[in-house]
């Protein structure tokens, strides 16, 4: 019956030499099976060894299940996939899924005032299709095109908007409440840095536009 013990240890040895965590756990479960068979075949059976190996096996099975779930790509609609590639390429599909789930898709029809000058923006908007207009005292400052954000400056600097955000033509956009976005970024620092990079790239584009206009 020592053969079972040797086979179990052999699988354990192989598991220690593999790089993949998934295979390491799978081989550990297999080794545990042989340890259990060896312990049961003993007379009298070594029940404490059986119990411990069942527990190890259950923990490994749970971790394998979670790892497989994490490997599955999240579902993204065609529109979301397009935005992932065009705007959020720095983030993984899973992170983009969580970010989109946090936001709210809307179809805006003119005329609609999204946020007035002098107020702290309650949301950050990202244009998916169409455009949003930024106006200051009846003067159009800029149009926000697909893939660009508006309200992010107010969100990042915690300051009131220097102009109004207006819908003047049909537009489809995704928006996030600034509170939700702040919580999301503080809870997930690894996503926060990617999102920060995207927002700062958008600001740099706007800054270039301002400098060119000047």
């Amino acid at each position: 019956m020592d053969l079972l013990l040797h086979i179990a240890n052999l699988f354990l040895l192989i598991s220690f030499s593999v790089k993949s965590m998934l295979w390491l756990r799978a081989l550990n479960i297999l080794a545990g099976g042989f340890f259990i068979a060896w312990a049961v075949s003993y007379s009298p059976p070594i029940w404490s060894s059986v119990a411990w190996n069942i527990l190890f096996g259950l923990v490994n099975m749970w971790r394998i299940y979670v790892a497989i779930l994490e490997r599955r790509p999240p579902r993204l609609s065609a529109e979301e996939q397009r935005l992932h590639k065009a705007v959020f390429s720095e983030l993984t599909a899973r992170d983009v899924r969580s970010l989109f789930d946090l936001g709210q898709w809307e179809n805006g029809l003119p005329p609609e005032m999204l946020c007035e000058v002098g107020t702290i923006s309650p949301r950050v908007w990202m244009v998916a299709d169409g455009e949003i207009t930024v106006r200051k005292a009846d003067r159009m400052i800029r149009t926000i095109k697909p893939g660009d954000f508006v309200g992010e400056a107010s969100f990042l600097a915690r300051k009131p908007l220097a102009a109004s955000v207006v819908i003047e033509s049909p537009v489809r956009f995704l928006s996030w409440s600034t509170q939700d976005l702040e919580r999301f970024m503080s809870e997930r620092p690894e996503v926060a840095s990617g999102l920060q990079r995207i927002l700062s790239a958008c600001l740099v584009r706007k800054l270039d536009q301002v400098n060119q206009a000047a």
Partner: protein
Amino acid sequence: MAVQSLSTIPERFLECQVIDSAGEAKSIGELTHQRTTLLLFMRHFGCIGCAEHVAKLAPRFIELDQLGVRIVMIGCGSPRFIEPFIERQRLVGEPVEVFTDESLNAQRQAGLMYGRWGGFGPRGLFEQARAFVRGHVPGDVEGDAKQQAGALLVDAQGIVRLYHQSRSLGDHVDHVRLVDAALSVCLNANPELI
């Protein structure tokens, strides 16, 4: 007057001289003059904790540069250690300038901590091991190992927008907080951006 967040950078700190690899001296005042500047103080050029810190921050240097932030690193070893440090940390071509202050005057005026405990106390030793496991390599002591690190983000008006005083070898400034402060400075300087 001590350095602290949202206060003007003290005159005595502005007068401190730092030296580049060619031996040319510049004052902190010259480096921070009319431009948002990130002053990143390191423990010493061979420090494993600083190698870890640079590796974490380096992916954000271009972003900070685009936001108009001048990035200045200040060590405390001989100027001859600067070029090897730049090469070792893969900072060639990055928008970073490296200086040193062997006298530790700039570090003192910046209010940074000094002592053996930060690097060789239980927390420091644990952080050394953690940095090693993460793939960083300790070098020779190229400066004063008792000097602790820190970071200051100073805006164009000379106001300290972010101040971080490292308490130990692995206590780095959070890069998300740092970029957040830089974004905030950029937005306040450009109120037309919305």
